[in-house]
């Protein structure tokens, strides 16, 4: 019977896929996203951290894009192409981890706030609301400034400032699920909190969570770059720190447009891809939106 249910699951998946495929933006985004993640993953097979090392940078400084150096070089003669490639690892890593953190906190708070009525839920909601109104970039900046700008703190700062919106989303969804009669039925069958949250609520919020995660990753990547640009990050090479460097070393006044444009475009393309995928997922998975669309 398990094989049959696996087949059912496959069928559901293929149905989902068929619907997802209708979203052109989502497909484009997915292709870009998969390509970006794959490239980041395989980068160590082709290049190493050395591409970001100024000591190894042997090329001409400030070289404009050419055949040999398609994206030009930076102030130390390092290849922008290779740096963007290597930097994608940091940017994506921070994006994913920060989103993960945000999602995990958001999920726990959201589900708990939605599931437990009474003072516990109300208190959790208050906390969420409180975090929600905090201006996130400003708070992240303060946190990064106070805790220092290591990769870990940047992830923390982004995660801590972005989870409330996830929590609200999850809570709204949890409330919606818990208002469904099958929860009542489940209770009448003798189910406890754990059974209800894990068997009914979680599977129901999971798809939304997926959509929300992709959007979170996108926003985390942008936030990381902004923090790096505002000098709150002392990370290894990421797209944000590259832009910061282009700014520090005066790429604009040097006329080195490629140094500003390429990492920025990398952010733009990847973030856009995540956003498109997230929106497409949401459109497919969120019946409310599906009805409207």
């Amino acid at each position, binding site marked *: 019977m398990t094989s049959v249910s696996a087949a059912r699951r496959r069928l559901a998946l293929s149905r989902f896929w068929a619907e997802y495929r209708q979203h052109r933006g989502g497909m484009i985004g997915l292709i870009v996203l998969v390509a970006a993640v794959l490239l980041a993953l395989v980068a160590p097979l082709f290049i190493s951290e050395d591409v970001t090392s100024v*000591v190894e940078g042997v090329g001409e400084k400030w070289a404009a894009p050419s055949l040999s150096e398609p994206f030009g070089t930076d*102030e*130390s003669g390092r290849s922008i192409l290779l740096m963007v490639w290597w930097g994608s690892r940091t940017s994506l890593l921070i994006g994913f981890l920060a989103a993960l953190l945000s999602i995990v906190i958001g999920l726990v708070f959201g589900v708990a706030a939605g599931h437990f009525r009474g003072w516990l839920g109300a208190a959790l909601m208050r906390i969420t609301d409180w975090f929600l109104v905090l201006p996130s970039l400003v708070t992240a900046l303060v946190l990064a*400034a106070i805790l*220092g700008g290591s990769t870990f703190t940047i992830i923390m700062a982004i995660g801590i400032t972005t989870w409330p919106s996830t929590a609200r989303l999850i809570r709204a969804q949890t409330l919606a699920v818990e208002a469904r009669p099958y929860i009542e039925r489940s209770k009448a069958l003798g189910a406890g909190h754990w059974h209800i949250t894990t068997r009914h609520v979680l599977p129901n919020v999971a798809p939304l969570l997926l959509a929300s995660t992709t959007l979170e990753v996108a926003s985390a990547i942008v936030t990381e770059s902004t923090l790096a640009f505002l*000098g709150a990050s*002392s990370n290894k090479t990421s797209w944000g720190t590259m832009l910061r460097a282009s700014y520090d070393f005066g790429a604009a*006044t*040097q006329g080195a447009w490629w140094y500003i444009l390429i990492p920025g475009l990398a952010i733009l393309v990847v973030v856009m891809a995540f956003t498109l995928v997230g929106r497409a997922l949401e459109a497919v998975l969120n019946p409310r939106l599906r009805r409207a669309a």
Partner: protein
Amino acid sequence: QDPAAGKKVFRVGATQAMDSMNPFLAVRLVSTSIHRWMYGYLTVPDSKTLQPSPDLAESWTTSEDGLTWTFKIRTAKWSDGQPVTAEDAAWTFNKMMTDEAAKTANGPAVENFESVTASGQDLTIKLKAPQASMLENPVPIMPKHAWESVTDMANYDAEKYPTVSSGPYIAVEHKKDQYVKLQANPNYWRGKPKIDELQVIFYDNPQAAIAGLKKGDIDLLGRMTPQEFEAIQNDPNIEAWNTQGRRAAYLQVNHGATTTDDKAVGDGHPALKDVKVRQALHYAIDKQKLVDEVQNGLAKPADGSIVPPMYKDFFWEATGEEKVSYDPAKANQILDDAGYKKGADGIRTMPDGDRKLEFRFTIHTETPIEDKLAEYLTAFFKEVGITLTTVKLESSKFTEETGVTGNFDIAISGWSVNPDPEEVMATHLCSRRPAPGGEGGGTESFFCDDTFEKLYQDQLKELDRPKRIDLLKQMQERLYTQAPIIAIYYTNDLEGYRKDRVTSITPIPEDKGLLYGGSGYWPFYTVDVKATAAASGSTGGGSNTGIIAGIVGAVVVIGVGAFLLTRRRKSTADERE
């Protein structure tokens, strides 16, 4: 209608804004510079030799024991017409000696003062101990009559215009974080400057400042990084000004940090206590490469110590045997001989144990150049079997760890040296080490060396300049050989100004000297610029672009309106379900 028409206006860009117009409080470089242009000091560095020369103090005498100094204050006028007297100077110093808040900016300058008195134009300063650098006093003399009434110095912002000044310029307007406008002081004792107005315009964003210079929004910009300098180097309208600078960059090595009671503090690597290791490190650094790659060639590799070559008198350079030049083989040799054996992984270990030679290199956050430096040093040290990992600290933390708690191995450091090197030398005295309670004294190296101490004490008392110079050079030599610090290069002073606007400007020192980055007001006193033509040039640009922007705005509004109208009409026409 253009208020600037026909006037000679000189606009200086600054990438820092004024922290305070009150000289007792202001510490930022831009503020002290502007105060230099506004107020008289006892002395001013000579425009040719940089030796102290008369400013408000016309002449001075010293008692035998070097403890009593008498300055004769020049007959001059404050910009409001009141005479400048010794009373003003005495008030200024006494204020600083009695009011904690007034010490904020230049407290140490009066630390050694016993008493300051005035009679007529004579100012008498009694010292607690001899002090050869007495003539380098960094305190602007403030007008007693205008400042006497200030009671709460800590919260006085001195935003009263025009200011009462005795220097070449009077501040007439200050828009916070935007600009300061200074006007030529007609009462200045050397005579009114050639220009009418001096504007200091602040940029948060150095790139914007460079763009402003290129565009002609400002006429001069100093303190550029090598990369910024490269950006203006080939601009036909800009004179790129590249001279030897005041700054020495060096590595601070934790050779066993101690407090003033000689107790060890911090967690420095034990290997660094060995002068051999420090010397080996010195041999392992390719300073020329650092200059080329990190400073884009716009610096001079350091073969001396902390006094840069710009100060010809005081500059000391190692020669012969003593000179350490890049030689990794020799570095390896020294380490091998001293018993630091390489392990299987190529990393050396301590002779008497298995602790590896793995050092931390502490730099500041947000200083891209230091990042680069760190990468090169890591590569250099790897050659001699030493691992270096970079630690980035935010500035106050940095100061604490490298100056008080001693939690570092090697740290980046640097000092902009004044014409008299006494202060920078003092940063390596025993007494500057942190007190046992953890209070810092401002040491730059935790150095505590008897020879060095003695030389310092001697030079304090030595009022004969050539002899004193010799003593100071010996101190530099000591620092060089003991290597508590390792000087790596002297950065050039990089500036640029608009050739098409500035007709003449004299650097300080006059021979290949500095402009904005220099000491004293000389370049800004001597500068001459073309008069602004009516409604032209970039000064008028504001209103021009204003009109353009206004027109653009109107067009946009009309466009949007028209678009909306047509849409409305269309939507009524093709109405659907």
